């Protein structure tokens, strides 16, 4: 009999796999958690929902021993536990997928997956062969949906965001936990990759393993979860059975009295003006002969499976991954885009979804993070914070970012709120061409609504927007037309009646084969 079963017998009632009660945590003056409550049963998939900054990640870190709570109790299998570090939690069978990833970029995929529990040879050295073969077996779980670059020997820093996210998932699975905690594990995954992850989780569930998943994608929550816990403002406000509730109810619990922007699908069709941006036959490492044209006021989507050149095209247009061939014009003028500063001064902006790598000025203040691009765009020499503060505040507030003050380090923000700052960084430059590379990664429903409203307003004022999203729904709802990518080429253009899930999926897979 395990200690857990003993406690159950003694208590005379069912002990949950995990039972957290009244968990509180403050960071300085910020109350991250006031009353976190969560009960996860054995063999279930449980969703933890709530707006950005409501305390989801903090609660997970408390459960996984990364953050020490100020108050509250955690019981695993009926036993009250006090984890002093992640290792303690791991020994109790709990492993956490970190929202901001916990990978060491310079190390290989296999080394990351096996980190801290490497197999040894007889002499005590790391047994590389076994390390690699174990990683190989785990990678096979994602066979067919992950790029071929995902190999045991690949260096993590060289991987695309979705593959890095998969490595973090494998790192969690490798620990064979009883409770898998996934803090926005699907944020950078495309539909197929997410579907595969859920297959894996369902198989684990059949073996009695539970999953706690955080997601801002309600579709997947309703598709795979058994029960739902909703948090708001640091406290748990609802514990629901998925089959007995619906989206509206859940959203109402999430936002409380606050209102979400109603997202209307009606929009004025863009005026038939001269194109603002054209590309003819452009190529770089991942883009092979792409041509497109973008008019003022247009919102154009880039569709297709993950990593088919969408991101490389956006970075190429921005001068971050210069094209090796082809021609780009902006407002009729041929331009050589080899430096990001030139692109910025021509009114281009690039929002990356991979904030840890591409956006976060680690350890610097929210203010510095927000004005970074503005300083370049306006060629400023002197920085007067008092002069820029109102502008920074306005742009942060336009997405309802939650922060204590502009001087706080960026890392004190929740994941979604950080992403809002990085979007605000570019909105502050007054862009004429907005290049969005999976920009909604980690931001909540309300903020997605805000972002869409801002995008439409910019478009109505004549900006052109090119957006890649790993979420098809966003492309369908947000874009005037969508260019579907496969292997670095545009294979189809969808618009009007053909712009729906079915056609998007068919174009992405069907014509790929």
């Amino acid at each position: 009999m395990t200690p857990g079963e003993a406690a159950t017998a003694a208590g005379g009632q069912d002990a949950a796999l995990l039972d957290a009660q009244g968990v509180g945590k403050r960071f300085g003056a910020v109350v991250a958690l006031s009353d976190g409550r969560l009960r996860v049963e054995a063999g279930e998939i449980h969703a933890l929902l709530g707006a950005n900054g409501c305390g989801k990640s903090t609660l997970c870190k408390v459960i996984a021993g990364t953050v020490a709570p100020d108050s509250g109790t955690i019981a695993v299998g009926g036993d009250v536990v006090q984890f002093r570090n992640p290792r303690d939690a791991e020994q109790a069978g709990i492993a956490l997928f970190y929202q901001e990833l916990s990978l060491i970029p310079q190390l290989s995929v296999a080394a990351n997956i096996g980190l801290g529990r490497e197999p040894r040879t007889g002499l005590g050295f790391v047994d590389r062969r076994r390390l690699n073969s174990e990683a190989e077996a785990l990678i096979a779980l994602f066979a067919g949906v992950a790029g071929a670059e995902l190999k045991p020997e690949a260096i993590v820093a060289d991987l695309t965001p979705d593959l890095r996210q998969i490595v973090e998932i494998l790192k969690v699975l490798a620990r064979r936990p009883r409770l898998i905690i996934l803090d926005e594990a699907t944020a950078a995954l495309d539909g197929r990759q997410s579907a595969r992850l859920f297959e894996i989780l369902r198989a684990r569930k059949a073996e009695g393993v539970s999953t706690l998943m955080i997601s801002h994608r309600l579709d997947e929550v309703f598709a795979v979860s058994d029960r739902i816990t909703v948090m708001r403002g640091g406290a748990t406000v609802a514990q629901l059975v998925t089959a007995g509730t619906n989206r509206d109810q859940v959203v109402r619990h999430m936002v409380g009295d606050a209102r979400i922007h109603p997202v209307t699908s009606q929009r004025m069709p863009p005026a038939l003006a001269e194109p603002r941006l054209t590309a003819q036959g452009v190529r770089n490492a991942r883009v092979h002969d792409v041509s497109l044209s973008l008019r003022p006021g247009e919102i154009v989507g880039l569709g297709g499976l993950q990593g088919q050149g969408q991101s490389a095209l956006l970075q190429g247009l921005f001068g971050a991954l210069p094209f090796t061939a082809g021609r780009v014009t902006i407002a009729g003028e041929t331009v050589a885009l080899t430096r990001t500063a030139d692109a910025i001064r021509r009114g281009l902006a690039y929002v990356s979804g991979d904030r840890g790598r591409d956006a976060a000025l680690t350890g610097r203040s929210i203010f510095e993070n927000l004005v970074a691009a503005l300083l370049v765009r306006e060629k400023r020499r002197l920085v007067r914070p008092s002069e820029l503060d109102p502008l920074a505040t306005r742009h942060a507030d336009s997405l309802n970012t939650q922060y204590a003050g502009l001087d706080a380090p960026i890392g004190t923000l929740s994941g979604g709120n950080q992403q809002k700052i990085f979007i605000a960084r570019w909105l502050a430059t007054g862009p004429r061409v907005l290049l969005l590379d999976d920009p909604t990664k980690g931001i909540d429903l309300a903020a997605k609504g805000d972002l869409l409203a801002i995008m439409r307003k910019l478009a109505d004022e004549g900006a052109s927007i090119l957006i890649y999203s790993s979420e098809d729904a966003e492309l369908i709802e947000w874009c005037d037309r969508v260019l579907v990518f496969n292997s670095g080429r545009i294979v189809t253009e969808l618009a009007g009646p053909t712009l729906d899930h079915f056609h998007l999926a068919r174009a992405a897979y069907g014509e790929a084969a």
Partner: protein
Amino acid sequence: MTLRSGLTNPLTLAAIAILALLAVGETLSPGFARGDQIVRLLTVAAILGIVAAGQNLVILGGREGIDLSVGPMISLGAVIAGNIMAGANAAILPAILAATAVTFLIGIVNGLGVTLVRIPPLVMTLGMTAIVQGGLVVYSQGIPSGNAAPALMAFINRPLVLGLPGILFVWAIIAVGLTFLLRRTAFGYAVYAIGANERAAMLVGLPVNRIRCLLYGLSGFFAGLTGVCVIGYTGNSFISVGDQYVLSSIIAVVIGGTSLAGGAGGYIGTVLGAVALVLLQSVLTTLQLENYGRQIIFGMTLLVLMLLYGRQGRLRV
């Protein structure tokens, strides 16, 4: 600021260390903390502080930024300045210009090696150390000729205004100027940005390589200026006069709370760090510790500091 965050704040820690060392010094040898003694110590700290300014910039810029070649660059600056001055007051300005221009260019070469050729800074500046040292022997034939002009020596060793030597005012101007540069100019913001996340800095349009080159150039410049100060302090120079500043400039920066990982810290901390380090050196001298004993203590100080600051590692961005 809570008590706890106050105690882990490097600036507060450095200030406490300074007061503690003064108290210890005064106990060991009454008169240690007398006014003229303190001015003497501050003068030594100023010389260290000027070379540490360049070291500070290079470290802030990140990507394992460090400049090991400040030692020979200081020696070179001192030798060049001595040769040009040859004891004549009229030649002070040309001497300063020549010394700093040469070391600035050497620094730029360091920067080009680090950015364009992507040589790790440790290796690049170590290689440069050997090159400059060798060049110095050839240039001076082992025994540098020339000496400081009397006015320069007075500027550094004699009271100028308010009983303080001129070099302290120069140091104050550098401290104010550098702090302004780092906190109130786009260039300063760019330095922190490339130190914090080079790729993100590139994506917001910053010329990362150009800035990093310039940081190494500035480190050279400050090393050359330090060389001028060193010869002004002692009157003449020898070809390894700068060697002692390599480790101590790095320690001063680290005491001051600048992260060796880059992207965090500032020059005010380094100023306090330089003062604390010079005080420590002086207390150790009072204890009549031999030179190797001092080296051991210095090395240990660096490691203990790394341990202390390293523990505040960040898990989040």
